[in-house]
């Protein structure tokens, strides 16, 4: 078995685990993690496929695509994290207002 097949299979398992996790988890941080795992799986498959060439160096085009992919996934994670922080602040504000609300009125 070629090494690339091994890594491609590994990437596909990661993608599946991530996708299933994305659907089964409730907590927003877990969902961000699951989306990141899916992304890593896809990138691993791409890099593994770049190694399919019978001889010589691996195909540079998928490598460039994966570099772009990593940076884009980081920015999407950062946006997701910012939204999560916003949600948690809104929730804590709601909780605070519902705590003080009955006392005030």
């Amino acid at each position, binding site marked *: 078995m070629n*090494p690339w097949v*091994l890594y*491609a299979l*590994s990437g596909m398992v990661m993608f599946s685990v991530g996708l299933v996790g994305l659907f089964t988890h409730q*907590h927003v941080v877990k969902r961000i993690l699951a989306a990141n*795992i899916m992304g890593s799986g896809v990138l*691993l498959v791409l890099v593994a496929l770049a190694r399919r060439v019978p001889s010589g160096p691996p195909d540079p085009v998928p490598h460039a695509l994966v570099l772009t992919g990593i940076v884009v996934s980081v*920015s999407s994670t950062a*946006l997701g994290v910012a939204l999560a922080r916003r949600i948690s602040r809104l929730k804590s504000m709601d909780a605070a207002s519902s705590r003080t609300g009955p006392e005030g009125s």
Partner: protein
Amino acid sequence: MMDALLDGGLALSLPFLAWLVLHTEALSQAVVLFVAMGLMSALAWARLEAPDIALVEAAVGTGLTGALLMHTLSWTEESQAETRTRSTRWLGDALAATVLTAVLGWAVLALPLHSQGLGPMVKARLEESGVDHPVTAVLLNFRGYDTLLEIAVLLVAALGARAVNPRTERPSLETADDPLTGELFRMTTPSVLLLAGYLVWVGAHGPGGAFQAGAILAGGGVVAILTTRVGTPRMSSWQVRWALLTGPLLFVGVAVAPLFSGGQLLEFPPRLAGTLIFIVELALTVSITLVLLMFFPAVRPPKVEHEGTP
């Protein structure tokens, strides 16, 4: 034999770590496992002869993402790790993942074996690209669109992150003044700068480039935010706005310039290509560093929120 063992171990450990990340109870443990998974995949990419990607993964995918997620954990409440959706659906999850893997595996393994890919085409035109490293040539010359749009995505994400939390750029009142970490930061700064400069320069010949250098500089910047009184770059300051725009504006300028002399968009003249790519990479490094740094909020999480009992 050793190679096969290493490949097998890595290929097995990655999905296992992914599964662990999603199925540990404590969120902080999940994040630590996620960082471990990122380092393992950096190793896997080094094994797959992709040193550029291994560098970016280690710095951005693992380092900065891990720091961001850790920082988020201190804001969101840890308690709601869902306990009811566990254990009962474990079997269903495993079954769904297996079926999905089988379908995907069938699709990928059905691809024609031993295809040449685009490697020979890139190699044939490498002379004209102005750089010696095929990945840099693809990123900044052959597929310049990708990099141009990627920096746009980064800018949009930074703007979005700031827009939903406009108050994060307010410098925190209680800055940590730990002498040990502050000294550590001062000692590591020269090597961080040297490494980043080297990576930009080496991008033309070997693994390295704007993203790797920007990621390392941003890593140093995050340490600075955490240990000194620097604070994150403020979107309200003009210097920060211009620094953010240097990369994209210069890149757009270089991309559009050939249109005026009868060329095509993003067509570099072969004589100047090397110089232009280096200038664009330098400008991109500045913008990427700032964007990555701006993802990181300066404000410490509120400690009084979760006191609970009144």
